[in-house]
């Protein structure tokens, strides 16, 4: 049963992608209907799979000696993430029915969205490192194609290419690690790696561990690869919600969580992970303070919250990070979709041209406030529980300055969240833009996610129990609901954190009048260039271009020289053979 469900999580969306593409752009209603149907089917299948999680391999497909076997393992970590991908995917597709109404080339859009959902499920369900990489690459392709969906807009294309290049550079780390694992253990299977981890040479293991860290940091837009996510906001908003908030960027965190037992003993690894998370969380929280583009602010916020998850893994709290992943996926998707409703209604992403929209978009305002409160970490929303859990773990296992930094981040989060909410929905209308309320499909998706934001924390007992049973190497201890409540509410650190957040909120409230004012030039410059990293990216790109132009000289286009090249290579090979002959 689990085998069929796992396989269908990949194949149903892919079949849907094929059918939507074949339907053709002349029948948009049918395309919408097909996309919704298939994504919902995948969502239901994913939910049914969750209780069936087990550490055993449920599906095996031999692919020859070189590629190993394609295995699917549906344990607690995989199934919950697959469920998130499919459910949020279904809601994003439902939202797209309204958002993308009247757009051309819907076939391309839905095909890539569905292809992505299937590939993401394959990524988390895969039990083989090589096929994990394979699905990883497919998600990168879909991400690029969807960011550049409006391919007449040069900024969209530039954003897509930038995202592709940066995530692929990280992907090299993943491939190198996978090949190193194969070279030393003879198998691509993740279970084999986790079992044999203590026996692998520490030097090789370090290479694998840091390679995976690089891949995860690039995919999740963590420091120092954090520059691509804000530029990826050129994508249609449902895509931003699905790929760049709730699923693909989680792939990096998933990678770290999955391989934590193998890499934790490596000296310096957990410290590096913690640093990456801390730096990402703080830098992007600062950048969100001054952002004027609504989606950009949300993008910075996403990177910041992913930093919390990465920090949690560095502190050893794998369950805490996955719990926050669940909360974040729900409330960030909610925020993005609500922002999408606003942008669709008002026609601009610039927050300085919004204001007072709450009167004309009451439902959107309510759900956005719910999402914002969860993001800020106010009590009893799902963000509160998961963020506090992370901070608890951080307090226990990381240095005081790291914990302090994360606390500061929490305060900053509260500040910029209030600023964002105020600028869009409250206060006086800053421009004469006519805003219409969200359509029915949008409302359905938004309400569903809002309900999730209020309720997902109740699943903590089931979630942690599932992870304890089905992840034999991770040694996770199940935390029941009463246990969670007790632990959080009785810890003094919680109240300290709440105090910082209250401070942030107060500051935001006091400064709300100046929210639309541009910050001092230095701050703005730092924000715009992502603390200098964009400048670095630009220079690297230009350097590569120069090198390519230089190398072009060898392509004379004359056959004789090409043949000479072949013969020179042949001579080199023969020389090597002659040299190594006994």
């Amino acid at each position, binding site marked *: 049963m689990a085998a069929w469900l796992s396989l269908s999580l990949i194949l149903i969306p892919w079949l849907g992608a094929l059918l939507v593409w074949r339907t053709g752009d002349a029948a948009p209603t049918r395309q919408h209907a097909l996309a919704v149907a298939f994504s919902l089917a995948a969502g239901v299948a994913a939910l049914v799979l969750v209780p069936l999680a087990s550490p055993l391999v449920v599906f095996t497909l031999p692919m020859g000696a070189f590629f190993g076997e394609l295995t699917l393992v549906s344990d607690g970590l995989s199934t919950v993430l697959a469920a998130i991908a499919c459910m949020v995917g279904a809601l994003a597709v439902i939202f797209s029915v309204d958002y993308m109404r009247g757009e051309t080339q819907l076939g391309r859009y839905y095909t890539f969205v569905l292809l992505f959902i299937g590939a993401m499920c394959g990524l988390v369900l895969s039990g083989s490192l090589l096929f994990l990489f394979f699905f990883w690459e497919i998600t990168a392709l879909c991400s690029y194609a969807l960011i550049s969906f409006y391919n007449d807009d040069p900024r969209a294309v530039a954003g897509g290419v930038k995202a592709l290049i940066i995530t692929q550079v990280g992907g090299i780390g993943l491939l190198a690690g996978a090949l190193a694992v194969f070279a030393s253990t003879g198998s691509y299977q993740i279970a084999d790696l986790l079992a044999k981890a203590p026996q692998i040479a520490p030097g090789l293991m370090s290479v694998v561990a840091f390679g995976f860290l690089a891949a995860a940091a690039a995919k999740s837009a963590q420091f120092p690869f954090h520059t691509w996510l804000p530029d990826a906001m050129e994508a249609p908003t449902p895509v931003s919600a699905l790929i760049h908030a709730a699923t693909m960027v989680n792939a990096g965190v998933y990678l770290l969580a999955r391989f934590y037992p193998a890499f934790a003993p490596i000296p310096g690894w957990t410290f590096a992970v913690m640093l990456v998370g801390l730096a990402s969380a703080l830098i992007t929280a600062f950048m969100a303070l001054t952002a004027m583009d609504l989606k950009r602010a949300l993008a910075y916020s996403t990177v910041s919250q992913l930093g919390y998850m990465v920090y949690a893994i560095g502190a050893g709290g794998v369950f805490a990070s996955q719990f926050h992943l669940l909360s974040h996926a729900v409330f960030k998707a909610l925020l993005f979709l609500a922002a999408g409703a606003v942008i669709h209604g008002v026609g601009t992403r610039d927050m300085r041209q919004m204001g007072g929209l709450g009167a004309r978009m009451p439902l959107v305002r309510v759900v956005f406030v719910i999402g914002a409160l969860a993001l800020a970490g106010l009590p009893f929303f799902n963000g509160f529980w998961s963020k506090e859990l992370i901070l608890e773990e951080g307090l226990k296992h990381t240095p005081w300055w790291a914990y302090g930094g994360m606390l500061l981040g929490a305060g900053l989060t509260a500040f910029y969240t209030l600023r964002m909410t105020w600028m869009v929905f409250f206060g006086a209308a800053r421009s004469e833009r006519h805003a219409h309320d969200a359509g029915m499909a949008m409302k359905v998706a938004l309400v569903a996610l809002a309900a999730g934001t209020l309720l997902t924390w109740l699943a903590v007992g089931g979630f942690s129990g599932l992870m304890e049973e089905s992840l034999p190497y991770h040694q996770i201890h199940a935390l029941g609901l009463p246990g969670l409540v007790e632990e959080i509410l009785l810890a003094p650190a919680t109240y300290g954190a709440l105090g910082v957040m209250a401070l942030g909120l107060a500051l935001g409230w006091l400064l709300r009048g100046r929210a639309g004012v541009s910050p001092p030039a230095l701050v703005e410059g730092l924000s715009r260039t992502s603390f200098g990293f964009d400048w670095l990216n630009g220079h690297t790109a230009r350097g590569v271009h120069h090198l390519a132009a230089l190398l072009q000289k060898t392509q*004379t286009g*004359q056959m*004789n*020289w090409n043949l*000479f090249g072949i*013969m*020179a290579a042949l*001579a080199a090979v*023969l020389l090597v053979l*002659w040299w190594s002959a006994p």
Partner: protein
Amino acid sequence: MENAVYITLGLGAVFCAYRAVIAVRLLSSMLYLACVSALVSILLYLMGAIEVAVIELSVGAGLVTVLFVYALSVVGEDARDLLSVIPKPLAWFTILLVAGLVAWLTFPTLPRPAQDGILSLKEALWQRRALDVWVQIALIFSGVMGVLGLLADTGRGPAAQPLEPKSARIAHQPEEDAE
């Protein structure tokens, strides 16, 4: 005695090959190629590969030569002794290196010939290497398609066209187009 035959044939083949490569007129080149084909075919027969020798003679010396002559008639002879693109010393050096290494690597390891098994060419080709036969059929088919496509719109015109090429490179200089 036997060696002498082999040496004569071999040297003849190499000499004709060399003349084919440095010939100025294309027709001479093709005729030398036919000679090489014939000599190689005799060598093959002497080594015991009778069917291969026959195929080599009829295809290499017969069919290919006819093809070349046909192409030459369509295209027109163009006998000019132009300098080569790659400087001759460089070419000599590379070839000597490659040929020398190949000879060095293969010569000492030549064992005495063992007795063959039970296999005949017929069995080898049609049963053991049956895939090869399919590949050959596919190759021939695609070759025919290719030629049909390529020669679809060529009449008998080109031979009458003037032989002015688009650019003449007499001296040894690579293309120096303005960027």
